[in-house]
């Protein structure tokens, strides 16, 4: 690091990306002031366990603090207060309590929040809860401990499916309501969604697809039942709302950054774009909130709500914050994610939503143990495995080398590609965890979101 490097770095967001960025800064020799802002009052903790093991009686939600993998030295933690604005002219982060934090470099790692249940009154009923924070997990776990007659899960994306899985492990009756044809169709398409539906039903889940919840009903301020669009009613002791996520970018309105509902646009090195399409040298973004053009996928802008993306994106951004141009790196790793549900290890590499077709190449989808390649034309752009995790590296290699589909082998011999059945963009479905949102930096189009919220440029 040269002598003229930054002296004060502010990281906005005290979760996985924020922590990994801080570690990288110290590891690479940044000795200046480091300030970490977080709207929750906790030091960084890991979220994936909250919809899985932390809902069981084994690991309490309070026990998921992330290890610090480097000596962070002096850090000024500003926890329990959200960022309210970014003033790029004075180079200050303005906190919700009015405090102003000057920066030489700032990292935006404010992540996402749960999409709320649309009716605020119904959402306020006791026993209606989404799951994202440690406190959410504690509330839901305590309600599960109380032994409800039935649990209602609204939305069969990864989080909802994982919660349903824990309920069945605990011997609880659970109804899952999903408006798409099957669970997981947003991230993995209808073919794989059908396999996921079979897993749920085999585990005893009352899975209702192509149905929506019209109203959550309570008595005495406590959730009691839900009325569904097919005219039926489900009585349950609690309702877990799992309708996907919204990106925390509202605080950046007025900053002049290309930030909005799709995330904070940045280059592959994490440098944020201003609304005029130019990369900004002192503002970086990483984690769930960032969207960046990915070299492996024709510079398609991707926003990835994946654990690995938070780690790598934060490390890349942190590195780039404190080094000179020629030493800067790009975030080009292949997206990867995992889920554990109903005794099945689900893993994926690449971006399934970019594919038109799917080809089961190993194992048997009907038996729930398989690997499948997602194809855009004849190129492999993604793969998914169900209890077939060790083959994933092979597919990662195919994606990185823009290879055509492998020949199906073993039980899969003779399989041919079929429509992966991703939802029509016009059809409502659970939002995928990968959002494809543009072609290249040069084709970004200004879009203004009208009144009702903050004005966003995209």
């Amino acid at each position: 690091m040269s002598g003229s490097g930054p002296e004060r770095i502010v990281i906005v967001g005290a979760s996985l990306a924020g922590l990994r960025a801080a570690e990288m800064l110290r590891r690479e020799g940044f000795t200046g002031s480091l300030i970490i802002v977080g709207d929750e009052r906790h030091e960084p903790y890991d979220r994936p366990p909250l919809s899985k093991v932390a809902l069981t009686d084994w690991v309490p939600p309070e026990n998921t603090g992330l290890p610090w993998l480097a000596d962070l030295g002096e850090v000024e933690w500003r926890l329990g207060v959200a960022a309210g604005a970014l003033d790029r002219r004075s180079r200050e982060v303005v906190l919700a309590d009015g405090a102003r934090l000057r920066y030489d470099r700032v990292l935006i790692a404010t992540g996402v929040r749960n999409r709320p249940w649309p009716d605020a009154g119904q959402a306020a009923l006791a026993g209606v809860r989404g799951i994202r924070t440690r406190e959410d997990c504690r509330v839901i776990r305590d309600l599960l401990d109380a032994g409800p007659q039935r649990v209602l899960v609204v939305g069969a994306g990864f989080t909802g499916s994982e919660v349903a899985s824990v309920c069945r492990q605990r011997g609880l009756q659970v109804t899952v309501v999903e408006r798409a044809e099957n669970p997981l169709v947003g991230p993995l398409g209808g073919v794989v969604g059908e396999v996921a539906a079979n897993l749920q039903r085999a585990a005893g889940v009352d899975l209702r697809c192509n149905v929506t919840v019209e109203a959550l009903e309570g008595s005495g301020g406590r959730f009691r039942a839900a009325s569904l669009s097919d005219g039926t009613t489900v009585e349950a002791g609690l309702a877990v709302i799992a309708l996907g996520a919204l990106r925390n970018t509202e605080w950046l309105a007025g900053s002049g950054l290309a930030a909005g509902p799709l995330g904070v646009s940045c280059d592959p090195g994490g440098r944020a774009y201003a609304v005029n399409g130019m990369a900004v040298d002192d503002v970086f973004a990483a984690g769930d909130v960032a969207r960046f053009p990915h070299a492996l996928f024709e510079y398609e802008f991707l926003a990835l709500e994946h654990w690995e993306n938070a780690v790598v994106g934060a490390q890349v951004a942190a590195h780039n914050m404190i080094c000179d141009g020629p030493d800067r790196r790009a975030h080009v790793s292949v997206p990867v994610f995992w889920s554990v549900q109903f005794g099945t290890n689900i893993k994926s590499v690449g971006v399934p939503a970019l594919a038109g077709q799917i080809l089961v190449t190993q194992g048997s989808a009907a038996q729930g143990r398989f690997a499948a390649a997602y194809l855009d034309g004849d190129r492999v752009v993604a793969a998914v495995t169900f209890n077939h995790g060790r083959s994933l590296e092979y597919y990662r290699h195919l994606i990185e080398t823009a290879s055509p589909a492998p020949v199906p082998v073993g039980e899969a011999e003779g399989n041919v590609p079929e429509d992966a059945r991703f939802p029509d963009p016009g059809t409502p479905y659970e939002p995928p965890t990968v959002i494809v949102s543009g072609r290249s930096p040069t084709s970004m189009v200004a879009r203004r979101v009208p009144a009702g919220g903050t004005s966003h440029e995209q």
Partner: protein
Amino acid sequence: MRIVVDLAVCQGYAQCAFLAPGAFRIYGEEALLYDPGPDEELSEGVRRAAAACPVQAIAVEPGRP
């Protein structure tokens, strides 16, 4: 102690579940569940598990200054 497993890297070899069953469990055929904050009394087993992991997916906090 605090640990984290990179589950994208984990290949389900289950060495950890043999070496430190109090902190690591295999769920179903190949999925790993683990305790991110195992008791100190498990620390030796957890450190051995981290060292033995064939894909080095387990990160153990080195201890804070």
